[in-house]
């Protein structure tokens, strides 16, 4: 472990950008976007500097830390504001700042017409800062700050055009569902403190051996809940599709490349917990497996290009989560897929943005078609991303996804075959819906609305796409070659030696490619031959309808959470009025009522007053009689 004093700049630069642009207001309109981009880029530069520093240090000295100040200290609860840059976080730092900077550049052009562009860049910078804090925090609590920070940034960016009520609702939905996950994270932190007396990563790692498995399992499950919320995993996946309401660069950065992968980071970071809590680990695998199929299925029926990509993201993150659930053999591959996915999915999202840019913000793929002729660069970069996600060699996805499939098959026991098969099926479905996206968008006939004149985007936009495309081609091999990433990360994980190989790598690749081929063929068969209608056909099977409705996820949430919640709220509002406040009012009414009743005694007749006195006297005499006898 070495000490550094410059880690804080990584976060500080973009944070300063956000602060300046937000507080400066309209005065910074002219140059705000440039400042934000520059700060993001300089943060990237600091990251690269640290990477070189790190590479040049011996393995055990590679992690770097910086203590900023004492944050919260009460009794035995001591949390410092501290940063930790190790082999894992540097990957994220570079991904976040690298892709982030590209997307800043892209957005300069993409948002040039928007009168609130400055605000947009402020949010972007805020996001970068929060995300960096998330991956650099040296304790669960510091991570939590970043964790909610990105949630906030995501909320702001999804709702960037919140004058449209649907968009505002989408942003709220995202934040609230994320908060459910955050609840998991805070409970995990509480469990950690209650059982281990510490909330720092290092401290927890140290105490894992002395902690009961039950506590670790509970903590693991809570971490999983957190991860599910942030990474749109089952059962907290429903917000991601709606999150596409945000401007497309946002979808590329936050909802594809970085923020949604925070769950993968969290589980990988907590490897020591999960390794000691097999039940929690199993749940991670199950959640990953369900989500990868779930997302893929949703993707098959989406006509909105961004939502199709979002479903794909969900599914791909399902792969990563599944890999992390496999334990030490999976962590490195999860991260590897995360990085490659960051490249190709961001690239595709930017491509989608580029298409929308040229198509007057149309997102319905049924109204695209034949765009390869009009947007060649977009077509090529998007196509590279497509090949990468399919896992066609030598594109990036081939290496990373195959490794996950391979790990699944090699995870041992009966579950291995089952998981392996699931990942293969997922690959096939992915191939199907991605091919569908390609065909609907770039091939076939023009189905544009009138007045739409597609055109290639300006260089500020295609340049980042090109860079990402290059990454989509090369990153896989670079990371895979000589097990580069695996070796880089392995000091962090406790890998217990060799794993039995159920299937040879070459067999896995062959199987995977076969499944992909099947998926592609079905899609080509289905969409190249027939004419695509611009309105989705209604006479389809119940299964299609079911899938179109996102497997009823919203209906489910509505029926089992939203409606009961609303009913409960209504019931409580009534209770408040009738029972809680009502009982007080009742007492008051009773007092007034008895007062009016007693007032009747005072009837104005002096004789009845005298009678009252007489009654009083008689009562006293009666009392005396009782006492005496």
């Amino acid at each position, binding site marked *: 472990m070495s000490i550094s004093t410059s880690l804080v700049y990584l976060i500080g630069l973009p944070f300063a950008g956000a602060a300046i642009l937000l507080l400066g207001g309209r005065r910074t309109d002219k140059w705000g976007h440039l400042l934000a981009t520059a700060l993001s880029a300089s943060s990237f530069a600091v990251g690269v500097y640290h990477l070189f520093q790190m590479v040049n240090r011996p393995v055990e000295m590679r992690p770097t830390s910086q203590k900023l100040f004492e944050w919260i200290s009460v009794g035995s609860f001591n949390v410092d504001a501290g940063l930790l840059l190790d082999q894992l976080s540097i990957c994220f730092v570079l991904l976040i700042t690298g892709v982030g900077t590209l997307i800043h550049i892209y957005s300069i052009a993409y948002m040039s017409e928007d009168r609130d562009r400055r605000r947009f860049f402020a949010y972007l910078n805020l996001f970068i800062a929060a995300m960096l804090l998330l991956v650099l925090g040296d304790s669960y609590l510091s991570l939590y700050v970043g964790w909610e920070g990105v949630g906030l940034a995501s909320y702001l960016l999804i709702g960037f055009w919140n004058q449209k009520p649907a968009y505002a609702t989408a942003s709220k939905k995202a934040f609230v569902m994320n908060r459910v996950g955050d609840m998991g994270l805070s409970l995990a932190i509480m469990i950690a403190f209650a059982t281990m007396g510490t909330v720092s990563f290092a401290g927890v790692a140290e105490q894992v051996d002395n902690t009961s498995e039950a506590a670790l399992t509970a903590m693991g499950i809570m971490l999983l809940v957190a991860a599910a919320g942030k990474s749109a995993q089952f059962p907290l996946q429903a917000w991601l599709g709606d999150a596409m309401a945000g401007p497309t660069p946002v979808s590329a950065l936050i909802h594809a490349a970085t923020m949604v992968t925070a769950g993968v980071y969290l589980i990988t970071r907590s490897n020591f917990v999960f390794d000691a809590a097999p039940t929690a680990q199993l749940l991670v695998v199950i959640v990953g497996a369900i989500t990868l199929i779930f997302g893929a299925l949703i993707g098959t029926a989406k006509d909105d290009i961004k939502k199709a990509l979002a479903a794909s993201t969900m599914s791909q993150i399902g792969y990563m989560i599944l890999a992390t659930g496999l334990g030490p053999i999976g962590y490195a591959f999860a991260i590897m897929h995360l990085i490659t996915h960051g490249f190709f999915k961001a690239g595709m999202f930017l491509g989608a943005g580029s298409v929308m840019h040229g198509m007057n913000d149309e997102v319905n793929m049924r109204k695209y078609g034949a765009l390869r002729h009009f947007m060649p660069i977009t077509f090529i970069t998007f196509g590279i991303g497509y090949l990468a996600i399919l896992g066609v060699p030598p594109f990036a996805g081939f290496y990373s996804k195959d490794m996950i499939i391979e790990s699944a098959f090699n995870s041992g026991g009966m579950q291995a075959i089952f998981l392996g098969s699931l990942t293969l099926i997922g690959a096939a479905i992915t191939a199907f819906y991605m091919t569908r996206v390609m065909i609907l968008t770039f091939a076939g006939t023009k189905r544009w609305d009138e007045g739409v004149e597609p055109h290639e985007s300006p260089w500020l936009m295609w340049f980042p796409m090109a860079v990402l495309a290059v990454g989509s081609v090369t990153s896989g091999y670079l990371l895979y070659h000589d097990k580069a990433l695996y070796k880089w990360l392995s000091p962090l994980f406790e890998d217990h030696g060799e794993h039995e190989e159920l299937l040879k790598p070459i067999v896995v690749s062959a199987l995977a490619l076969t499944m992909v081929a099947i998926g592609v063929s079905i899609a080509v068969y289905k969409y190249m031959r027939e004419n695509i209608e611009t309105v989705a056909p209604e006479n389809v099977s119940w299964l299609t309808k079911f899938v179109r409705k996102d497997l009823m996820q919203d209906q489910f949430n509505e029926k089992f959470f939203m409606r009961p919640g609303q009913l409960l709220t209504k019931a409580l509002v009534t209770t408040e009025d009738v029972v809680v406040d009502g009982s007080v009012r009742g007492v008051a009414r009773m007092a007034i009522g008895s007062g009016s009743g007693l*007032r*009747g005694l*005072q*009837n*104005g*007749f*002096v*004789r009845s007053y*005298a*009678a009252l006195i*007489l009654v009083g*006297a008689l009562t006293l005499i009666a009392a005396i009689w009782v006492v005496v006898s």
Partner: protein
Amino acid sequence: MDASNYLYISALLFTIGAVGVVVRRNAIVVFMCIELMLNAANLSFVTFSRINGNLDGQVMAFFTMVVAACEVVVGLAIIVAIYRSRRSASVDDASLLKR
């Protein structure tokens, strides 16, 4: 004759007076009932004076008579005044003030 019999008579007179106050309507009669009660008390005083063998009770009776006389003065003044304004001496008519 046992002195306590006087006490019973006194109690009876007192009770008659008290009941009279409650049941009679004419202010003068009501007032006379009260006088009856006072005199019942006087009877008790005198009786007790006899029983106890000292004169304090008899002195008290004189005081009571004087005070009762004063009460008559004040009382009649009030009753006459109210009779003049209302042309009625019924205590039930004077029930403006209530509740």
